[in-house]
Every structure is written in C-alpha cells, then in structure tokens.
C-alpha cells in the first residue's frame, strides 16, 4: 500500500499554540456588561491549554463552558474566568468587579464545586445516569456526596430532561434545563473540507492482542499516513461516518462501535469510519492512542485490522472541526449514556445525519425524522468504568452491541439521497429549536432574570 506521511507534523504544534492563545484571551475577559443583568463569573474544571486536557476527567466541561461564555458575552455580559473562586471571601476581595448582583456559573464535577461566596452560584452539571450519590459514609470525603454538593449552589442547570428528573428525584430540587448552546459550524463543501484536512495524520485500525504494548504502539505509529492517502487507498468516493470520542470513556461503547463498523464493512466496503480520538496528556502520540489505549477498550480476541477505520488524534481548531463535519455523511454514536453529546449535536447542526443510540440526553432531540436509531438492550450495568457507579448503587443502562450498530449503519446506507437530505434538514432544525442561540438565550435570560429579582428582593 502506498503510504504518505503527513507533510508537516509541525502543523499540529501550530494548532496547539493557536488554541493556547485563544484560551488565554478568553480567560482575561472581564465581568460586567449591560445594566439589568448580573456581573457574570465562571469557573471550570479545566483551565489553561485545553489540548493537553482532552480526554482527561471532566474535560468536556471546558467545551460547555466555552459555549456558554460566547453566548453570555454576546447577549448578557462577558464572564470573568476564575481559577479559584474559593479565594474570594467577600466582595472586597475583588474591588475592581462591578457593583450589583454577581452570578457564578460553575462548570465542574460535583466534588470540584467551589462557591464564589458573594455571588449567586449556579452549578452547570452534566449527568447521564439514573442514580446520584446522596449520602456520606463514615470516613468518606464529604465532597463525594453529589446531592449535597449540588445543593450548596443556589440552582443547578442541566442539559437534559433526563438529568432534571434524576436530580429532582434525588433531592436536588432547584434543577432547571439550560443546555449548552450549539452554534452551527461554518461547514465547507466536501472537496474544500478534504483539502483542509488532507494532511491530517491518521492510522488505520490495527490491533493485535498478542502483541506487547510497545509493539502495538509502534505498529500504529508506523502505519500513520495522511487522511488524503488513507481515503485514496480505499478508492472511489467512500461514504464517511464520523465519530468523536475519548477512547477511555466507558460511556462511548467503543467496542460495539468498532466491531459493528468492522462487520458493516463486509457488506459495505466503501464505508469509512473516521474516528477522532480525544486523548490529551504529555507524550501521548497517535500511535499510543490508536494502539494500546484503543486496544485496552476493546474486548479480547485475536486481531482486528481494518483500513476502513481511520483513527486520528490531532487537536483541530474550529475551522478544522467544521471541515471534519463537512467531510462526513453521517455521525455515529453508540453511547450508553450522554449528558448532552456536544459532538453529535454539532454534527447535526452541520448537516450530518445522526446514527445513534437514544436514551438519556438524546431522548430530548433524536427521533426517526432526523436520526437512524441504534437499537439497544436494557440491562443492569456491568461496566466498572461508568462514572454513574460513584453513586454507590448499580443501575440499568441501554447498551447497543456490535450487531445493533451494524444494523443501523446498514439502514443508514440504505437511505435514499432525498430521505437523507430531509433527515439532515430536520436535524439542523431540531438543534436550532432546542439548542440554538435564541433558544438557549431565552432560557438563560429567564434564569438570570429570576436571580436578579431574587437578589433585589
């Protein structure tokens, strides 16, 4: 096979440097804005360079925070990012901050919630499991009690009706649905998208459970080629399915996704799965992510090698992400649970047809008009990696297997061009109605207005 190495590895370094610059600019935005709205503050689990944090615990809070920050800046006031809200014991600790009411939006896991004492505190909490930890056992860290930590806040914003129901059932009464806004990406045409991403380093799925870890990574590294070369090797105009996930996130059901797609390719050899893997950390290379890290999340077996499953790992900026969506025909998600599923929503806003499991957050916005549903069977969870287990109780999940994924992919491939276009349009409209700037702005205004009235009273 002809392999073409990516032209300039330094492009990735440049992208990261650009990303760092943007994060810093965002971090110094000052609170304050039009009269009538409270001064806004935000704190997030991840501060600094997001590219290094991709895939580490709670990294997705960063993306939700960034989306809210843009919306708030446009329509309310520019939020000021706080690295340590606990630093400020009173208003005099921040003499330069505006007078009037303060509101602090917290994008953190429950254990990391820190109040800005002089402000109205709002936890923006992502949760996708039917149980919540509501007790503190003797000798246990008190901050592990999720319900208690959420109830420290004046209110809680969640992204789905599912989460709202779960939290209220567990004693977190002041819960409201205010999801992160989704901006439609400026998607280029397919040809332009391919040009933009031609040099993106990818490596085909190639795992062998008999190889030692080092050899596994070396093989994945040695097989790296450019996206253009990877697609060219398949010939013709492949149908591209896109998935974006952290391979170590147990919710993503990676094994079913990969095995289902591998099986799908027997009948549809011109299908390609472009799998963008989110995994940060120092010294984490594409070879390692696509090699041993990926293999660790796949169920055993002997080996799997599929040139139609292309793995990439590079940090992509907004324009490149839009190009990625422009390249894809479908977005596929086999998750067992999602708090909102931002990549899926962005893909739908970009015109990709969703091929996805339902349930949890997806129940709010996926139906047959805009998505091909992946069937799932409800059973008690047997995956020790799911974060819901912090509640200390087991719970049921709806989990798709490889065959269900393969069946849904085949259904997707069987859609007529007209049906597909109709579903893409319906998906765009659904995202705009539920998560568009106007929709979320109205929800935020209603909540902030309530808070202002409370503070004035």
């Amino acid at each position: 096979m002809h392999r073409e190495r990516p032209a300039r590895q330094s492009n990735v370094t440049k992208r990261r440097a650009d990303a760092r610059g943007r994060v810093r600019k965002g971090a110094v935005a000052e609170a304050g804005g039009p009269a009538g709205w409270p001064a806004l503050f935000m704190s997030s689990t991840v501060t600094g360079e997001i590219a290094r944090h991709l895939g580490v615990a709670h990294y997705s809070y960063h993306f939700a925070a960034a989306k809210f920050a843009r919306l708030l800046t446009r329509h309310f006031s520019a939020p000021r990012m706080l690295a340590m809200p606990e630093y400020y014991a009173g208003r005099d600790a921040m003499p330069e901050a505006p007078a009037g009411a303060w509101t602090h939006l917290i994008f953190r896991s429950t254990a990391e919630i820190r109040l800005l004492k002089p402000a109205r505190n709002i936890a923006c909490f992502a949760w996708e499991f039917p149980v919540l930890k509501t007790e503190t056992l003797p000798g246990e860290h008190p901050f592990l009690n999720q319900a208690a930590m959420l109830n420290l806040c004046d209110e809680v914003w969640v992204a789905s009706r599912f989460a709202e129901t779960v939290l209220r059932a567990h004693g977190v009464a002041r819960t409201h649905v205010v999801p992160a806004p989704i901006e439609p990406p400026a998607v280029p045409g397919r040809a332009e998208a391919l040009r933009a991403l031609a040099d993106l380093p990818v490596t085909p799925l190639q795992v062998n459970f008999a190889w030692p870890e080092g050899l596994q990574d070396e093989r994945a590294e040695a097989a790296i080629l450019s996206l253009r070369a990877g697609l060219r090797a398949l010939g013709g105009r492949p149908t591209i399915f896109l998935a974006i996930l952290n391979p170590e996130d147990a919710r993503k059901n990676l094994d079913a996704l990969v095995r289902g797609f591998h099986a799908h390719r027997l009948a549809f050899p011109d299908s390609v799965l472009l799998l963008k893997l989110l995994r940060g950390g120092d010294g984490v290379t594409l070879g390692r992510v696509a090699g041993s890290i990926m293999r660790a999340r796949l169920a055993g077996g002997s080996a799997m090698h599929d040139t139609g499953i292309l793995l990439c790992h590079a940090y992509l900026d907004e324009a490149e992400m839009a190009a990625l969506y422009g390249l894809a025909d479908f977005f596929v998600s086999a998750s067992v649970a999602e708090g909102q599923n931002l990549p899926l929503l962005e893909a739908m806003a970009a015109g990709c047809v969703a091929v996805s499991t339902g349930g949890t957050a997806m129940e709010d916005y996926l139906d047959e008009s805009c998505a091909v549903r992946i069937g799932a069977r409800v059973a008690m969870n047997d995956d020790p990696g799911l974060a819901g287990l912090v509640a200390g109780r087991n719970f049921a999940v709806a989990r798709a297997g490889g065959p269900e994924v393969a069946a849904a992919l085949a259904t997707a491939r069987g859609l007529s061009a007209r049906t597909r276009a109709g579903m893409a349009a319906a998906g765009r409209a659904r995202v705009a109605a539920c998560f568009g700037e106007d929709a979320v702005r109205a929800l935020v205004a209603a909540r902030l207005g309530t808070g202002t009235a409370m503070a004035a009273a």
Partner: protein
Amino acid sequence: MRRRFWLEIGPLREGQYTGISQVTAGLAGAMLGDATLDGTPLDGTTLNGAGRARGFFFGRAAVPARVVETALTRGEGEWLEFWLARAEPVAPALAADETAIAIFPNVKTCRRGFAVETQIVHDLSALLTPQFHMPETVRFHASAMAADIASNDLTFCVSEATRQDVLRYLAPPEPGRVRCVYPGPGLAGAVAAPDAPVEPYVLVLGTIEPRKNISVILEFLAAQPHVLTALRFVFLGRHGWGEAPATLLARHGLAAAAEAGRIMFPGYVAAAARDALLARARLMIYPSLFEGFGLPVLEALALGTPVLTTRSSSLMEVGGTVATYFDPFMPGDFGRGLAEALRETPGARTARAAWAAGFSWTRCWRDMLAAIEALPAGEG
C-alpha cells in the same frame, strides 16, 4: 459544679512551632496566664471563686502545667515528645464534681469523651484546595472534619472566612454553634532595636510550598532584576513540599542572583531570630493563595512592618486597612502592589501596630471562654 478546661496539646510536639502548633502555644499561654483558672493539681481542693480549672492532656495522659510551660519556653516540641514518651498513661481525671470541657486545637483525638467538646478549625484548605496538599493530608482531614464538627458543642474558627466555609460546605446541624475567634500573634518577646543600620531587605515569610505562592515573587524578580540591586529578598521558612528552592530559582533563571546573595533561602530560624528579621525588614510579603488566618501578616503588623499580601480568604480580616494587597491572578499587579507597599507614610508604622493590638491571645481565650460559658445550662 466546677468546670475544668482541658486543652489537647498534641500540636505542641511539633519540632518547630508554626501555624497550628503556634495557635496551640498561644492558647496554652493564655490559659496559663488566666488568673481566673485554678491550676491546682487534679485532686486539688482549692478553687477560685469562678469555679474554673485548667488541664492539659495528650492522648490518655494528663500533662502537668509545668511541663507545658517548659515546652512553651523552649518553643519546640522535641523535649515535650521526650517527656510524653515516659508519661504515665493516666486518662484525664474526669472528677465527679467537675464538668470536663475539652478544647481540641486541631483534629479531634476522641469524640464525645468529654462532657463538652470544642474544637478550633483553622481552615478547610485540605478540602477546598486539595491541589496544595499531599494526598495523605487530604485523606486525613477529609475523613475526620465533618464528623468532628458534627460532634462539637462549639466550633471555633480562626477567621470569619473559615467560619463561612464551615457553614457553607459542611452544613453543621446548629450553625449558631460555629463561632469566629481570632488568634493573637506568636511573637517570642520584645524585639531589640538594631544596633547598626541594616541593608534594606524584603522578607517573605512562610513554609515553602505551592499554596504560599512564592512563584509570583520570583516571576516578578526574573522580569525586573533591577529590583534586586536595591532590595535583598529573603524567603524565610522551611521547605514543606513541592519544588525546592534551588529548583524554583533555576526555573526562574535566578540562580545567579541567589549566588550573589540577593535572594536568600535560609530555611527555618528560631522564633526570636525570625522576629528580629521581621522587625527590621523593609517589607513583609505574604503572597498566599489560601489561608485560614495568616499569622505572619499579624506578626509583621504587630512589629510595625509594612505588609504586602493577597486578598485571599481570611487575609483581609487580618490585614484590614493597614496592609497593602495585590491580585495574584492579575498579571502585573504584584509589581503595582510592591511599589505601593514600599511607599511608607508618616504614622503608618504606629497605625499597623495599633491595628494588630486588637488581636491577642488573651482576647482569643476570653472570647472562647465566654462562648463556652454561654452554652445552655448543663453543657458549659
């Protein structure tokens, strides 16, 4: 019924008295100096009119007052540790005609072993800022703090900031039983005037650890090295954890300045020497990112020395209007604060000392005593 106030003196075993051990020493000193407390032996029958007595204990051993006095005079815990190793394991005598009131100056060594239990909470730093602590410290405090507080009849917080943290994050069943009592300065004694002029220097006081945030100073000095020609910077305190002084200096490109003696890390020095250095300093900087109180700030002010510190947590309660503040999260603000703090105005030294005089161990003990005695009948 007389009341005996039992102070748990475990923290006094520490090799060097800083922070919690300094608070314990201050409180023990105030109790020893309180003429209204009867200090007769446990079986003593003479009592003052107030019906109050004092006692000291560690573990199951009652510790005589003279032993505590010696430990305070020595200012370190090695001797006390040696004494305790040979002590008879006598449980604090809980006489039938006494109400035993325990005062735990740190984590409680028992719960509901006394008729009345009180505890001093310094801060929730291990819970709120775990990034500044070793994991075992976080585990130690996290496992005990909420249960300790729930078992207290009274919880004393060393600042209003800490009190608010306790109320907000740990939600004790009776918020009215969580009180703020300010500690006093832990100065060793009178500081003699310098016998000769000293070269101007800035003192940075505190254990070298990430929470104390000395990097903000080193970053400034790396960017503005000319400052070092006029002022020597002395970082006084032992290395706790995190980057060692040599590593910090190398990382900021200041190894040569240290080599030339313009930046110094002398480590821990005894209390009297520290006080003398503090009194002669042109300025004391305390750049901490989170505190329960901030004793070095108070001690510097008590000696009339100008203070530059942050507005973090409790520090504005300690520094009031006589300290200068900077925002460690705002680039460049340290430089502004330094310039402002170095501009001395007439009468400022006296004003600082007068402000600090509002904090004392006598007042701290008096406030604690009043709160305990105000407990409903049958408790205090």
